[in-house]
């Protein structure tokens, strides 16, 4: 039932865009790409881990693509993608060694610290990273084929949505797997997890790598759709934005980040235009409202639908 609904939703996203104005398609592309970074945060949140530095992996992905184009002469988007999965996994595997020991505010701020270090590096090593100018990402080839210039936006959109949908499925498998449950168990009770014979730090470490790879892929996709990357993708405000969207969508489902991300991109598109100085304040106030009144995020609104019998938990009967 849930699978049918998800597939139906995906079908809508595949069928409708050709009939939409180009700027909407662009926003949707960005929303899907960023949803992957948000998904990483949501996965960690299920283990009670809140990171304020997840843009780190988003930036790792984006700059991997940038460097691949600039230094390795890679022009195929799919090759850049594979490279980004590798660097995302590598970076999170390395930092995870240190971070998997921490919880709560330590975890959140250490992640923030590392993402700011990356930001400083991206900013200051001008020769390699282009500094504040950033790097340009030209239109990629896709498996050797040059996309039709007329339908460029749409092509990138489809690649993004299909890849993101695949990763959503991976995330879904993850959350229903023993490791996904162990992670939730870690949030509930670490002592019991260890006494049951499972390793808390291993569960966190593995999940951290999965979350890092998700964000890294999101970074590549967003990079190619914008065509240009700047150090700000690693700045704390970017991480904060991801956290915000994670909370906005809720942690109840792997689909929630997509819903949250789409709502967010469209609202920002308008709000930023009318009142740039109060944008963060608006985010802060909405976040307060979510914390106090809607702790499950927008996704918890579907709980109302569930009560009407529209969806059911499959195996609980």
């Amino acid at each position, binding site marked *: 039932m849930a699978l049918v609904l998800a597939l139906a939703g995906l079908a809508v996203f595949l069928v409708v865009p050709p009939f939409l104005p180009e700027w909407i398609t662009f926003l949707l592309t960005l929303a899907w790409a960023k949803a992957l970074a948000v998904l990483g945060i949501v996965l960690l949140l299920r283990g*009670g881990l809140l990171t304020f530095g997840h843009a780190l992996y988003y930036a790792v992905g984006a700059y991997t693509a940038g460097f691949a184009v600039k230094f390795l002469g890679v022009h195929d988007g799919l090759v850049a993608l594979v490279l980004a999965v590798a660097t995302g996994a590598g970076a999170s595997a390395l930092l995870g060694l240190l971070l998997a020991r921490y919880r709560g505010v330590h975890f959140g701020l250490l992640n923030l610290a590392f993402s700011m270090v990356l930001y*400083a590096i991206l900013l200051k090593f001008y020769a390699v990273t282009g500094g504040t100018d950033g790097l340009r990402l030209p239109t990629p080839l896709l498996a050797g084929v040059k996309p039709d210039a007329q339908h460029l936006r749409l092509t990138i959109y489809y690649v993004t949505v299909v890849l993101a949908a695949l990763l959503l499925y991976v995330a879904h498998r993850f959350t229903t797997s023993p490791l996904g449950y162990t992670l939730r168990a870690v949030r509930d009770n670490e002592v019991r997890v260890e006494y049951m014979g499972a390793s808390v730090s291993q569960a966190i470490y593995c999940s951290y790598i999965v979350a890092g790879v998700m964000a890294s892929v999101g970074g590549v996709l967003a990079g190619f759709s914008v065509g240009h990357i700047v150090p700000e993708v690693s700045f*704390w405000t970017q991480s*904060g934005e991801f956290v915000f969207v994670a909370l906005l969508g809720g942690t109840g489902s792997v689909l929630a980040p997509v819903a949250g991300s789409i709502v967010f991109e469209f609202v920002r598109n308008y709000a930023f235009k009318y009142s740039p100085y109060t944008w963060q304040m608006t985010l802060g*106030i909405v976040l307060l409202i979510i914390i106090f009144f809607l702790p499950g995020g927008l996704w918890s609104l579907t709980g109302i639908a569930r009560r009407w019998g529209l969806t059911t938990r499959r195996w609980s009967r």
Partner: protein
Amino acid sequence: MSAGLTFTYGVVRILNLAHGNLYALGAYMGAWLVLGWGSSAWPALSYLLLLLAAVFIGVTAGPVIERLFLRRVYGKEEEIQILLTFSILLILEDVIKLAWGVSPLFADKPYTYMGVVRLGGVDYAGYPFLLTGIATVTGLLLWLVVTRTRFGKVLISVITDREVSSALGVNVPRIYTLAFTLGAVLAALGGAFTAPMFSLVPGIGAEVIVVSFAVVAIGGLGSIGGAALGALLVGLARATAVHLFPELDLFAIYLIMALVLLFRPQGLFGQVEARRI
């Protein structure tokens, strides 16, 4: 600054991400007052204005944040608490932009009043010495308040055991508000008195929280002595780095933090919390 952060954490057990914004508010308020009312005829007035700014920000913003928001999430999951202070951070960032605009604010009068000090044939600006003096005095005062006064004793009893203190008739919510306010004043004080050294731009709050978290993490959360040592280490590292590799000053801080945490995850003076089962 870091003392304020670790102080409020010790009491309230919530690490306040908006602490950097209180620092920024103090800085802006101080600079604004000095620009508006400071006069070169009476230099001492500008220092008084800085102090006034800090106290004003501390005693207005502190209680409001604690009473209105933090109070509702004591005892909830840590993620919720962090998120709450994060949303306050976002709001305050824009409050600063709305109140003082986005163009840099530069009030260096208090800095130039101090002139230069000649030490061993080299000229040093006088203001950093004053700043060091103020930090030392504040640290000493804080230590005296915590160890020598009734308020300090009550505070320590609340930190050690909230339930027992409350049973003994301590008004715990009141202590929380007071402690949080004190922490806010410390943050604003740090901001106000460093303001004359830099030009103020939006976003300094967030930068400051990252650095001061590094300081606190090195020292160990909740330990004031640790925060002082952490600040010293970070200051030295930064100075060395600026001297040797100007690109890497931020890097140096985090390198130290990573090294310390690698070998002592709880920080130099932090204590491991054992869970009773």
